[in-house]
């Protein structure tokens, strides 16, 4: 395959396009169609006397491209074939096919499970037939699930595979959750102190039925979210308040994407250190690991509200509250300076260089220094004055 890395990715390599085009089709319905098509294609190959095979996009770093126009990370056009009659691939091929068959069943039965559950299902059904453990480790199945996602152009959630839930939301939003045969309406304003736990799949059987917000505020830390929730920040600001509790899960990223699609500005609030900023950039451009998911898992429109190193100049008291940057922070800052999509922003180069120079960082919690409610005031001020970093 030619090494054209800038061209348009193939249609079925990009999940959201088909989804967007055929909006009325659920992700899992599409997944089911594609699983069947995959099976038919292979049977045809076998009938032609060829090795059953499937094609998938190369997911390695070498095939990760920053889409300038879209502003997110995606995969290039490098594709590879996984063939059964290739000794080094036959086992992984067989495993992938087993996963495919199993997930087809899950979709048909409308049941969900985790990768771990899948792992035991496969172990259970194959254990008797063969003298070797076909899935020795769960980590083995993870890579081939990614293969399958890329090959089918669907997300694992569409295959009824769940991941760990992480992240909490509150705010003026109502979601209809069709779950276990019943419709449940979730009101983001009535979630009390704990908020609504964001599930791994916010696409299938999940619908935003009411939305009355001005913007979305994503807060890195759960502690900060609780603080702002107690202040009823979301009510005062008419904002959707989300915390991914650190790095964003797939569900959180999908939810932010969906809210952005509804026209809401996405504003991110993290620590003033390389790790926090990296959390922001993952939300904005997506990560290299999940680049195969492309636009569906990135929010290029997102803006960064703080905390910035420059805030330390702005708010005098913060000077006293800085702490020393760790080795990993410095290293991460250096890495980020090398990413083309970051280094094209002079504001970020400035911030990152400040970290390298001062070797200092500032936690978002420090904004509670003067008084506990200061953090809300800080955010309101910056958001209204649009003091954002790109």
């Amino acid at each position: 395959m030619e090494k054209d890395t800038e061209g348009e990715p193939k249609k079925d390599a990009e999940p959201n396009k088909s989804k967007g085009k055929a909006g009325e089709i659920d992700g899992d319905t599409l997944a089911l169609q594609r699983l069947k098509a995959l099976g038919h294609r292979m049977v045809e190959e076998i009938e032609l006397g060829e090795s059953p095979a499937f094609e998938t996009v190369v997911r390695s770093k070498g095939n990760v491209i920053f889409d300038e126009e879209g502003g997110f990370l995606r995969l290039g056009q490098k594709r590879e074939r996984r063939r059964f009659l290739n000794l080094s691939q036959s086992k992984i091929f067989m495993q992938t096919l087993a996963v495919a068959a199993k997930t087809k069943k899950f979709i048909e039965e409308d049941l969900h499970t985790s990768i771990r559950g899948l792992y035991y299902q496969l172990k259970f059904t194959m254990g008797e037939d063969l003298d070797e453990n076909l899935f020795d480790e769960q980590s083995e199945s993870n890579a081939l699930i990614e293969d399958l996602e890329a090959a089918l152009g669907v997300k694992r959630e569409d295959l009824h595979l769940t991941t760990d839930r992480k992240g909490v939301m509150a705010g003026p939003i109502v979601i209809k959750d069709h779950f276990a045969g019943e419709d449940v309406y979730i009101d983001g304003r009535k979630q009390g102190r704990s908020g609504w736990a964001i599930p791994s799949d916010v696409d299938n059987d999940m619908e935003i039925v009411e939305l009355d917000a001005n913007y979305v505020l994503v807060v890195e830390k759960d502690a900060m979210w609780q603080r702002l929730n107690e202040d009823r920040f979301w009510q005062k600001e008419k904002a959707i308040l989300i915390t991914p509790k650190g790095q964003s899960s797939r569900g959180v990223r999908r939810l932010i994407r969906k809210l952005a699609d509804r026209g809401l500005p996405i504003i991110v609030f993290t620590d003033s250190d390389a790790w926090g900023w990296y959390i922001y950039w993952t939300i904005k451009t997506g990560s290299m690991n999940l680049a195969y998911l492309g636009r569906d898992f990135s929010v290029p429109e997102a803006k960064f509200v703080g905390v910035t190193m420059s805030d330390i100049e702005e708010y005098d008291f913060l000077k006293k509250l800085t702490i020393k940057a760790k080795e990993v922070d410095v290293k991460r800052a250096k890495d980020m300076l090398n990413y083309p999509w970051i280094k094209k922003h002079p504001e970020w180069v400035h911030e990152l260089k400040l970290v390298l120079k001062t070797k200092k960082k500032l936690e978002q919690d420090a904004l509670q220094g003067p008084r506990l409610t200061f953090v809300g005031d800080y955010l309101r001020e910056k958001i209204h004055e649009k003091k954002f970093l790109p």
Partner: protein
Amino acid sequence: MSPLDGSSVEKGKSAEQTIKNSGAREREGKTDKISGKAGSKANRESSSKSSGAFKEYSVAEFFKKNKQMLGFSGKVRSLTTIVHEYVTNSLDACEEAGILPNIRVEVEQISQDRYRVVVADNGPGLPKHLIGKALAKMLTGTKFHRYIQQRGQQGIGAAGATLYAQLTTGKGIHVISGYRGKMISCDVSIDFKANEPKVENLEEQESSFHGLIVEGEFADVKYDASQYGVLEYLKRTAIANPHATIQLIAPNGERHLFERSVNELPRRVREIKPHPLGISAHDLLDIAAITPATKLGSMLTTELSRFSAEKLRRVAELADVDMNKSPKDMTWYDAEKLVKAFKQLKWIAPPTDVLSPIGKEQIEKSLSNILFPEIISVVERSPKVLWGGVPFQVEAAIAFGGKISRKGEIMRFANKAPLLFDAAGCAITQVVKNIDWGRYGLKKFDEEPIVVLVNVVSTHIPYVSAGKQAISSESELTDEIKNAIQEAARGIKLHLVHKRKAAELAKKKKAFLRYVGQIAADLSALSGASKEEIEERIKYIIEHRFDMGKGRERTEAELASVEDANERKGAVSEGSDDSKGKKGEIATDTRNTTDVAEGM
């Protein structure tokens, strides 16, 4: 016989000279007489009569001092040497008479280190008057000064064995000879004082038996099954002489039979005159002692090959030696000058069709009969010339796998006679050790079930020492040995590569087949097609694709793609970001190679 056939690496420093040096320092005079004994009958008679010096020098004494050199060092080796002397005589006698040899060797233990040895053959036998000379005449030499490919005696030939019997047990040997309708039975020993054979208790009767049976008791010897023992010696002799049937009855009563694998005698060897470039000063002096020529000039033209009147004139000029003097008056210095002059002239090479190698087919047959290997690769090089004057030829064979249990075994032969001792000093061993066996698909020579056989045939084998158990590393010779072994190794390599490929294919096929059931079930679940049909179809594809008869190119490409893919797989399993760049690139390459494989 080593001292007298002049075969030793440094010409002029042969065993004989060592004998001479140990006996008397001066070449002129006394020692002249010792060497002069062997040769033409007349000459032998006269020298034995006139050699007063020799009589004072006891034969027994001489033997004791030169024991090692004569092959009698160590108990095991001594027994092997005894058997070697008799068996060599038997093989030579049979071949000369045009008889396919049947040789039986019996070794019986009498006490701790005392054994009875019987060697019987179906040769022409010995006439009455030659029995003593053949078996008990010290420094006898029907083979003396013959420029002919011969197996070569160890030390002083059969007489050495007789002498050893006498020295260790006080008794001579018993001989039965069936010759032209008569069967003669007698005891043979050496009269130490006269240095003459003694034949006693002679009985004669009419008989149709032909052949020779030699029976003797020997002490200070030992039989074992080591690689230096009689069994190994006879096994290798059988390998190098596939036209002979050889059997051994070992002391424990076990019978080892090496049956002939070909029914034709080897090509007759032809005697040639020595070539000026293959001769030493010492050899010239030996020739001078036996030549009927009266002038040095005529001796050179008649006794040496390629020697014309013109050459004689030029040699005389270069060497500044009087060609009219009697050969008997030639001094060591004269001889040296002549040899030096020979080397300054150009000569037509000696004929090379006088040699008789074992033969490619013969080696193959005997190796497969005796070693039962998985594969044999034999190479017979064309004859070459050493030093411009000595024809030689190298054969090499490699046997691998099968019933071969010893690892990295080297079988060395000189004129088809096995060389069991002094392995480290031998050119053959050195060449084998220096070959990069990895290039031929053999990782470690010493750990592989492999036998390398090398046979060097020549009218004059250059040995390292008088022990005649190690061939000297003359570059012309080692090059040939190396070429021969490498060529044979290539044959083995091809086999090994094909074998490994076949094994690889079988393994692959098996690996694929075990997944077929699962694949078929899952494909059926995905597509709705019948599981049985899918399974049958995939099995058919696998069988078809891994059918070995479908040509090698495909399988080679397949293998290549597997190797590439393995590399790639290694990268896939690493999940970290850092490894992914590499993975991507390799993966793209793999796609190309798998496509190639697919297209087949």
